[in-house]
């Protein structure tokens, strides 16, 4: 009898611990879980679309009162210095290009954040916030990483995935960029190569983006014709390889800032997702690169939990906490752009993206996007930074979503990476081609 009682007690404790239906992190219990029984607690703190899904039980928010790191301090020293040194240093010209506030010349080398203090009354506040959002990735230097795009359907669950390899080289934002000759005022080089599945493997896209208003230069390598071709830079609202993401959706908006009209709607408090309340380990390699440690949390989604009620794209292991955000309205200047008005929620302290809602060209709600924030740190705490990881985008009209994840055990994620700029030339691009 005593044994049976003990057994029942143990089982009961386990049910209590695990019965919330979400994954716990070591040493942390959520303050509460917001689900369909108490959805009112999230009202006004998340976009309306997400609230509707919480009401239906398709999404739950495990909320913590605090995370275990102060993300406001999680920037390299030069970026922290820019919070004071760059105040008033830069402005925007009539084309929305960042210029030196004193000389009016285009700013070719910005270290840290260009607009660390944003006045909400400034008519250009929204554009400045978007530039800060862009530079929050540039300040960490070159990157190379793999991601998996996973297609999930409400009725079908997991459908397919593709793996892509990204290389990003920024020629502004961090001190190391000064070492590179940049006579053409390139802001950024990027290459995205699809590694699987077999039929798409080898498909690669290369981007040259400029600091000026000059349009991007795009190249694609198409395995079917074994050739590098020039492609249009204007087709950024097209679905990326048939997914729910468009090219511009990365980090809420990955296009050229001057191509959009932005308006600051409000500042507010929000419940925002984090990959973990703890920092994720970073190891410094022999070459001085910062590589995500192997013992990383594996972010899980509804499709992993076949018995659960959550939507297959709903994050299961993300946690939520309150942060202030800017809500920005965005409209493309391109009359053929496939999206209508978009609303982007940008964190005020770290300038990272968190939510986005997309309306169609008739201004009806169409898609919802969520991005997880994560803090990274070495064991000796000498290297620490925040970055934005998994993206989820949902198209409720088609009951379909796509997840971009960097948090699989086999994912490569290297910041402050060593990249050869020759790779981003016409000749170098051939290396990634079959």
């Amino acid at each position, binding site marked *: 009898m005593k044994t049976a009682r003990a057994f029942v007690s143990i089982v009961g404790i386990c049910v209590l611990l695990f019965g919330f239906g979400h994954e716990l992190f070591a040493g942390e219990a959520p303050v509460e879980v917001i689900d369909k029984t108490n959805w009112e607690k999230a009202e006004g703190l998340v976009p309306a679309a997400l609230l509707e899904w919480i009401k239906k039980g398709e999404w739950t928010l495990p909320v913590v009162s605090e995370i275990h790191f102060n993300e406001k301090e999680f920037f390299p020293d030069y970026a922290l210095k820019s919070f004071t040194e760059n105040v008033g240093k830069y402005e925007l010209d009539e084309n929305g290009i960042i210029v030196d506030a004193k000389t009016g010349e285009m700013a070719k080398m910005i270290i840290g954040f260009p607009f660390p203090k944003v006045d909400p009354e400034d008519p250009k506040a929204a554009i400045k916030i978007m530039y800060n959002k862009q530079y929050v990735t540039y300040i960490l230097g070159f990157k190379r990483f793999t991601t998996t795009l996973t*297609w999930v*359907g409400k009725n079908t669950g997991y*459908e*397919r*995935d593709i793996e892509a390899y990204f290389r990003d080289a920024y020629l502004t934002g961090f001190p190391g960029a000064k070492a590179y*000759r940049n*006579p*053409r005022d390139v802001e950024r080089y990027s290459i995205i190569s699809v590694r*699987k*599945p*077999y*039929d798409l*493997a080898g498909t690669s896209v290369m981007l*040259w983006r*400029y600091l000026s208003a*000059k*349009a991007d*230069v*795009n190249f694609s390598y198409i*395995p*079917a*014709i*074994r*050739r590098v*071709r*020039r*492609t*249009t*830079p*204007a*087709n950024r609202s*097209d*679905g990326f*390889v*048939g*997914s*729910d993401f468009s090219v511009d959706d990365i980090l809420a908006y990955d296009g050229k800032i001057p191509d959009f009209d932005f308006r600051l709607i409000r500042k507010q408090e929000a419940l925002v997702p984090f990959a973990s309340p703890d920092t994720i380990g970073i190891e410094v390699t022999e070459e001085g690169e910062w590589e995500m440690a*192997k013992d990383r949390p594996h972010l899980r989604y509804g499709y992993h939990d076949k018995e659960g009620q959550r939507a297959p794209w709903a994050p299961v292991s993300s946690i939520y906490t309150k942060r202030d955000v800017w809500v920005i309205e965005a409209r493309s200047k391109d009359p*053929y752009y*496939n999206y209508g008005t978009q609303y982007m929620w940008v964190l005020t302290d770290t300038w990272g993206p968190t939510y986005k809602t997309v309306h*169609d060209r008739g201004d009806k709600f169409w898609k919802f996007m969520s991005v997880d924030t994560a803090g990274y740190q070495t064991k000796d705490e000498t290297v620490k930074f925040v970055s934005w990881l998994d993206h989820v985008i949902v*198209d409720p009209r*088609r009951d*379909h979503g*796509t997840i971009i994840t960097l948090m699989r*055990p*086999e994912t*490569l994620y290297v910041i402050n990476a060593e990249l*050869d700029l*020759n790779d981003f*030339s*016409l*000749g*170098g691009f*051939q*290396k990634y081609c*079959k």
Partner: protein
Amino acid sequence: MKSRKVYSRLLCCVLAVFISAEAAHAVTIDNKHTLEFTAKAQTRVSFRLQDSQGFTSPKLSVGDLVQWRNIAYLEVKHDLAELMKTIDFMKPLDRWGVNVKYRIVGRFMYEAVYNVGPQELKDVRDRDKENIDSFKQAYDLWECYADFSRGPAFMRIGRQNLSWGETDVFRLLDMINPLDDTYGGIFEDLDDRRIPLWMLRGNYNFGYLGPFSSLTLEGFWVPGNWDARVAPISPDGTPYALPLAPAPVPILVETPSKVMSNSRWGARMMWVLFETANMSVGHYKSFMDLPSTVLNVDFSAFPPDAHLELYFDDVQVTGGTLSFWQSNLDVVVRSEVAMFWKESVFIPQENVPLIPTGLPIPGLEALPAQGHKTERDILRWMIGLDKNVWIRKLNQTQTFFVSMQYFGQWILNHDSRISIQPQLYPDDQRYASIRELDGTFTLLTNTTYLSGKLTPQVVVAYNARGAWMFQPQIGFLREPFRFLVQYSGIYGSFTSLGFFRDRDQISFVVTYLLN
């Protein structure tokens, strides 16, 4: 035969390993994914939708199976970056900053139509067993190359494909690798037909120079004593052979011998001008895909001993490309121009002359005379436009990709007798002429639905002399499979594309991907 059995068993074992692996994941050796095995297996079945006409042989009918091609690719990719740090003899490469990777692809192909197809094709095999048995199967180390790169220099050594130029559907500057049209003709994807060559290839990025950026010099060399292969010729009676009248004399196919003088080689310079226009100029030597014909006669015998010699002439090509994005119209403009120097042409009266005897004796009205090669300089060009178009009534989430091209051709010092070799049925002495100026238009459009699962595409080609090709297809994917239904039809004049106007077919393709 023994080696083929061994290869077959090996293929079965390897495929069993791969298929038993979890679907849609590569087989990897290490957790950094530096070494990966992937594979693809495909079966393609095609049914003829027209009765054979003219000189096409054998005579097949509507509904006949004309293709059941089974093909498997096994691929290994290995990035040696990690290994170079640990293996002693490779450490110097790591210290010098040399990046090394390699890729190996094995291809296994079996065409089953000669076993299970219509009786006419079984008879083709029975008449020419050894040749057809050899033709219908292939086991190749298909691609096998190593990449070495350091800073601005890149080199790829091994069996590989190299494609220059800006064209789709048809080739212009992209004549470096030969094409294998024997198993599916022009209805097959260009890349599936390309035959890799053993090649040394390299490029060097000079970077910025005045208005030029990404200024790159690229060169290649296919040593003739390594590889002098050319496009294979379809054996008589195979479903995608040219419709030629039966030859009255034996045919001897002369392929280039493996000697250094039969090397392919070339170099080009490419750059981006004012960050706007992609340009290149280059020159290369290669071999034409279509053989030329010469009648060889040995007059020491009576009647003279004659045979038709099919030879693959080498050709030197000089050309350039220009492509840019036009922002106002949001189109990508592509253009290409190439001069083919002394390309072999076919003038029946010169290549395969028959001298009238005036004798009213059947079979002796004309006697063969020694033919000779004829050549001309031919200028070819292409201008194309690519545009992504939103047609929201048809697709709310993806654009339609539309690509249009015009291919032009001008034969310098044209001779009105210049012809192309398939004869005009029923006269085996009459050939379709080639005009001084000729042109072909192409249109390709595709889009995707159902989150990329459904991909319809249409390709249309029109030759100015009245031949059309129409090729709609629809692809569907359900991991790890790909399904394709494709119609291929050619109509109109018996010229250019029109030589295959009696080969309309419908094809069903199922592909399994490991990763």
